[in-house]
């Protein structure tokens, strides 16, 4: 445990920022970390430095390398190169257990505790106190009670099964367990994703309490407001590299978004970087319209309208609720609030089959999990949704199937040795084309494409973008989610921006620019911004953590 008081370390913390490169009092220092998986670099020359009693944010888009870096720190992965110093000593943890006993505890997004066992069993899982070879229940329960007391949970019955408590309490138990290892650094990976606002406020109180007792925190989150509410510094990762390490007070939300996405503010928009043509599409009547759609905590209030012949871009940071919105629109998840209209008629989708009947095609963002049937052939994968239409009395008509398959292989330029080839043998780009063909074979009026070019090689990427453009020319409505700003700015006629589960801005083509989109991602609408400030303020209650954005910098 650190012996210097909270106030003292706070000032030294501030002084340290002035002298770059010499943060001698750092609790954790990771330098030049490299890690590849099968020759593909996941983390390159990354560094992460966390001060004593510091709450340090770690942010970045999907695939930026955050979790790899965390896992290298906690001993899940072995690094290829680089050095890690913890408390001034070079360390190399070979397992999470070792990291834990050395003072580095991790709380994962999914609470990885045992729901059926009691609270105290969970807190002491794997290191139960024993007496004469048997579990010492009395000591275990008493200790647990004491540990939970530190988090304002003295009312919790420690003998109850963990699963019977609400999620927020479970999360606290997970934190209590992590801290009870005499943790000096607690890593929280998206701890707030399953919590509501009041629970988030409690969590922040806990983080501040930890800080006051000398514990540092690495806080991984996609919600910008939260970072500003509780964090002192932020490290930004992009494409496996750490690209910035800044005090929260010196970076605005907009700057932070720009760094995450790798854009210079005011960067001239490059044209022609994508396969989209220049032709602006005329929007026709609304094909699909969602109003105030809500589902769970990820989708709170989203409205979007897509007409025939237009490409609507859906932008937002990771966790903004884009995929959740797409899934509701495609019938994959049922909405819990709001209204859905197809061609003006109020509609209910209780399954993807309903959306397909309404001639709405959907391409998911996760090709492996929700797209391909890996062991089946290109033929079977391509015609999976169309089979009933290709059959007579339940028997597939081979000639019809072959005709459709060959037409799309040719039209989309799918590189395959033939319809019999298992789809898993195809490249990512060609798998994606097969899945797009699966949707197109249904002759949809509307296509919902979630990250259509993710994990696709450059050549196929341009081809897919060109195809989307052609389809819109032919009158198909397209709703396209993309994390690549070029794809959105060049491809879309209209851009809808989401933030924290809400659609916060809609930009007509004339107003579409990378800057405008980033601004909306960071702040949303004016009134939305006030909302955010209000909740952030509410979370601020006990100590006076610096309100960073107001300061110059």
């Amino acid at each position: 445990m650190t012996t210097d008081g909270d106030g003292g370390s706070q000032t030294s913390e501030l002084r340290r920022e002035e002298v770059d490169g010499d943060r001698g009092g750092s609790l954790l220092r990771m330098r030049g970390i490299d890690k590849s998986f099968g020759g593909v670099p996941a983390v390159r020359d990354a560094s992460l430095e966390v001060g004593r009693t510091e709450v340090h944010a770690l942010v970045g888009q999907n695939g930026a390398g955050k979790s790899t870096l965390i896992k290298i720190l906690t001993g899940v992965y072995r690094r290829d190169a680089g050095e890690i110093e913890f408390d001034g000593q070079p360390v190399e943890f070979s397992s999470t257990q070792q990291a834990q006993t050395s003072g580095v505890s991790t709380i994962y997004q999914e609470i990885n505790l045992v729901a059926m066992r009691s609270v105290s069993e969970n807190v002491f899982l794997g290191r139960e106190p024993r007496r004469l070879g048997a579990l010492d229940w009395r000591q275990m329960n008493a200790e647990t009670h004491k540990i939970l007391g530190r988090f304002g949970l003295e009312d919790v019955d420690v003998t109850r099964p963990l699963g019977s408590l609400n999620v927020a309490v479970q999360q606290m138990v997970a934190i209590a367990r992590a801290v009870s290892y005499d943790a000096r650094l607690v890593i929280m990976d998206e701890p707030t994703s399953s919590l509501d606002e009041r629970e988030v406020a409690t969590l922040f109180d806990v983080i501040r309490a930890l800080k006051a007792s000398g514990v540092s925190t690495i806080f991984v989150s996609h919600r910008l407001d939260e970072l500003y509410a509780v964090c002192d510094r932020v490290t930004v990762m992009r494409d496996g590299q750490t690209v910035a390490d800044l005090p929260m007070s010196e970076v605005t939300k907009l700057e932070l978004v720009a760094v995450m996405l790798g854009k210079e503010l005011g960067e001239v928009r490059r044209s022609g970087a994508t396969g989209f043509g220049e032709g602006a599409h005329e929007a026709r009547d609304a094909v699909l319209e969602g109003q105030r759609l809500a589902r769970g905590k990820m989708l709170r209030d989203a409205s979007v309208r897509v007409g025939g012949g237009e490409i609507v871009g859906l932008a937002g940071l990771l966790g903004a609720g884009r995929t959740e919105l797409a899934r509701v629109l495609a019938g994959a998840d049922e909405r819990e609030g709001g209204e859905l209209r197809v061609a003006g008629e109020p509609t209910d989708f209780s399954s993807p089959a309903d959306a397909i009947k309404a001639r709405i095609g959907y391409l998911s963002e996760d090709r492996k999990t929700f797209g391909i049937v890996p062991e089946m052939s290109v033929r079977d994968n391509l015609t999976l949704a169309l089979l009933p239409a290709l059959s007579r009395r339940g028997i597939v008509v081979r000639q019809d199937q072959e005709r459709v398959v060959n037409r799309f292989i040719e039209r989309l330029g799918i590189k395959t040795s033939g319809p019999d080839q298992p789809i898993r043998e195809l490249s990512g780009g060609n798998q994606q084309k097969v899945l797009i063909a699966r949707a197109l074979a249904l002759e949809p009026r509307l296509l919902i494409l979630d990250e259509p070019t993710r994990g696709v090689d450059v050549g196929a990427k341009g081809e897919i973008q060109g195809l989307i453009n052609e389809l819109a020319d032919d009158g198909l409505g397209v709703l396209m989610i993309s994390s690549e700003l070029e794809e959105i700015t060049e491809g879309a006629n209209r851009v809808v921006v989401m933030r924290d589960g809400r659609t916060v801005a809609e930009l007509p083509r004339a107003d579409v620019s990378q800057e405008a989109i980033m601004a909306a991602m960071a702040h949303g609408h004016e009134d939305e911004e006030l909302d955010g400030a209000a909740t952030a303020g509410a979370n601020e209650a006990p100590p006076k953590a610096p309100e960073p954005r107001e300061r110059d910098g």
Partner: protein
Amino acid sequence: MARTARLRLPAWTGAGRLRGFGQAYGALAALALLVLYNVLFTRDFLSLNALYVNLTQVAPIVIVAVGMTLVIATGGIDLSVGSLMAISGALAPLIFLSQSGLLSSNAVAIPLAFVLPVLVAGMFGLFNGGLITRFGIQPIIATLVLFIAGRGIAQVLTSGQLKAFKEPAFQYIGLGRPLGIPFQVVLAALLVALAAFALRRTVFGRQVLAIGGNEAAARLAGIPVNRVKLAVYGISGLCAGVAGLIAIAITPRPIRTESG
């Protein structure tokens, strides 16, 4: 009766093609060794009669395996087939041995003794499917219910004991020999051919395989996943029902169900 039913999986369910081939050849090699051993050391093994005896014994298992193959192809399992065989096998004699009303006439009772037990087993199969699709219970747990309860149901049906019977019209399914070939062997061959055709050529079959290959993707492709699953468990029940009839026709006493 042999206790192990070897189930032929479609090649693609293996983790990789190589391993798939390995599995296929491994089983074939074991079979070849068994045959070789028996050719060398078992008297009269290489006779048509010995072949028929073997096929006769294996036919009910093949029939159960047809339904089970569909279930496994969706990524599930059906533990209850042994118990469903017992229920069907217990029910059939009750029908044609009954002296009450219309059932006293063999013209009514015998057809009914074929149809009704199979349908009942099919209904129990649908019950399994309902637990799995409607309540999201793991197949191994859901079908455990009837695996255990089914034996009890069969015992209650027979009041714990079954009289030995002799009813040639019914026992044809187990003892009949059209053109010298055991009837149940013909039946098993037909069902295998039907299932193979269904899996290869019908929409239903392709959907079964797609669900087993990637259920989430199948659902997003508009496949009625729950309906297909319900159907495969129903079919598994029907197959178990047919197998139960054969078993009771060969040995008219209560079927041991411990084999599952």
